[in-house]
């Protein structure tokens, strides 16, 4: 074979391309971390949502709580249309819920704790907590019915905002990568203008020349993309390892699912694709100005 190289253009001597892999590596590193953060937040919101949606909690203040009251309320709830399951939360379990917030000693020192009844609502059923509370209060006054909506909706809004912010930052990172590739490609076009003019005169189609820049962008972005993705993976593994030690009952599991890890591959793949397409478009636009 006469040709060992793939390009008519001496890209290996082109100083302007030297920094592109580093830029892509940095972009991919940040991109993978942002995408991972977005996925974790999204998973957390889904977990909160699926755990707490479709559930209500009836609280019976300690001063009126007794086993008889609790059982009669549970019986009423069991008979309520739309209720799938009713569970009286044992006192020990209710106290355990307070330990992360107040500490073991305070909870164990005779702190008054309300009795709790956990209600699971049948899929598709809708129960108005105000009406339910009014009905139950006829049996045991001063009870409260909590459908978790108040704090859950605020938390979900916050989490969704964080998610949108993460994706917006990803978009900014992609834009910065596009700009870097455009400048590198333009610089390459200027450096190799004599050879490009020669190929053009020989009858090379614009796509013939563009494909050489495209291949070069692919190789550089691939190098940077792999380095950036590997670095980000190491950071995420370290975070995951540190996160294992955190015990917080109110926090959902902050880790990526196997599908999430796979989804992270989209970032380097996207970076390579963006680099190739940007290089191609930049060259085609520049060549279109030639006669």
């Amino acid at each position: 074979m006469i040709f060992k190289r793939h390009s008519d253009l001496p890209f290996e001597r082109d100083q302007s391309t030297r920094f592109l892999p580093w830029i892509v590596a940095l972009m991919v590193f940040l991109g993978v971390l942002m995408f991972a953060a977005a996925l974790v937040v999204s998973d957390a919101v889904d977990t909160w949502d699926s755990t707490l949606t479709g559930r209500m909690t009836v609280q019976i203040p300690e001063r009126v709580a007794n086993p008889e009251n609790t059982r009669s309320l549970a019986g009423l709830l069991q008979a309520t249309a739309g209720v799938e399951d009713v569970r009286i939360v044992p006192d020990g379990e209710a106290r355990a819920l307070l330990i992360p917030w107040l500490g073991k000693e305070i909870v164990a020192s005779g702190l008054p704790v309300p009795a709790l009844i956990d209600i699971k609502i049948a899929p598709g059923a809708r129960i108005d907590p105000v009406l339910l509370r009014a009905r139950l209060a006829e049996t045991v006054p001063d009870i409260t019915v909590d459908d978790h909506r108040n704090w859950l909706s605020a938390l979900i809004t916050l989490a969704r905002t964080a998610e949108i912010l993460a994706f917006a930052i990803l978009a900014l990172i992609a834009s910065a990568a596009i700009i870097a590739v455009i400048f590198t490609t333009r610089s390459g076009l200027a450096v190799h203008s004599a050879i490009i003019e020669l190929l053009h005169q020989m009858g090379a189609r614009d796509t013939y020349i563009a494909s050489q820049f495209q291949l070069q962008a692919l190789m550089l972005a691939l190098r940077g993309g792999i380095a950036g993705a590997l670095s980000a993976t190491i950071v995420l593994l370290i975070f995951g390892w540190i996160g294992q030690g955190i015990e917080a009952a109110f926090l959902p599991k902050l880790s990526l699912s196997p599908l999430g890890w796979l989804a992270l591959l989209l970032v380097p793949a996207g970076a390579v694709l963006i680099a190739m397409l940007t290089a191609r478009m930049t060259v085609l636009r520049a060549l279109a100005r030639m006669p």
Partner: protein
Amino acid sequence: MLSFENVGMRYGVGPEVLRDISFKLAPGSFHFLTGSSGAGKTTLLKLMYLALRPTRGLVHVFDQDVSITPRTELPELRQKIGVVFQDFRLINHLTAVENVALPLRVGGARQSEIDSHVRELLSWVGLGERLDARPSTLSGGQQQRVAIARAVINRPKLLLADEPTGNVDDRIAVRLMYLFEELNKTGTTVVIATHNNALVEKFGHPVLRLDDGELTIRRKSDARGPM
């Protein structure tokens, strides 16, 4: 094959470097293009090989009006034109073989075809021993022969050469002229821009003469006369 009608050319807002150029080249013809330095020979060649568009007038290449030919169809026309540049324009990081093979690659030729044709032609122009040499290691004359081989490798229908014998001795110059004539005999239309009056007289082809941006044509019988 090629025709110019009242063609004028100026760069930017400068004066016209070519004025009212009109001529026709028949298929298979052989012409010399002469004129003093700065007369507009290179500009005229650039118009012929479609590197420039005229500021006025009509240029037809292979019977196509280039002013209305879509840009996407121009590469096909350019592939039928071989050009020998005055400054060779060899690609320094490619070997002699790779440089000569470029037009074939651009045209999508098969690798086996490229291998045999290129080596054969380079041997014919006396560079059989320097196939894998890079241009920077070749002498001026050798570079010129590589440039000529590259221009003729795909048997162009129109060959344009700008001072192709400028850097070679008389023996090689004559040999190169024979190569052009051989190519001409196979149907290629040839235009050679040159200052070498001896060569013009020896080969006696018609002459397109440029003086101060204006063209005069001398038929074959006149060409042997004083220029």
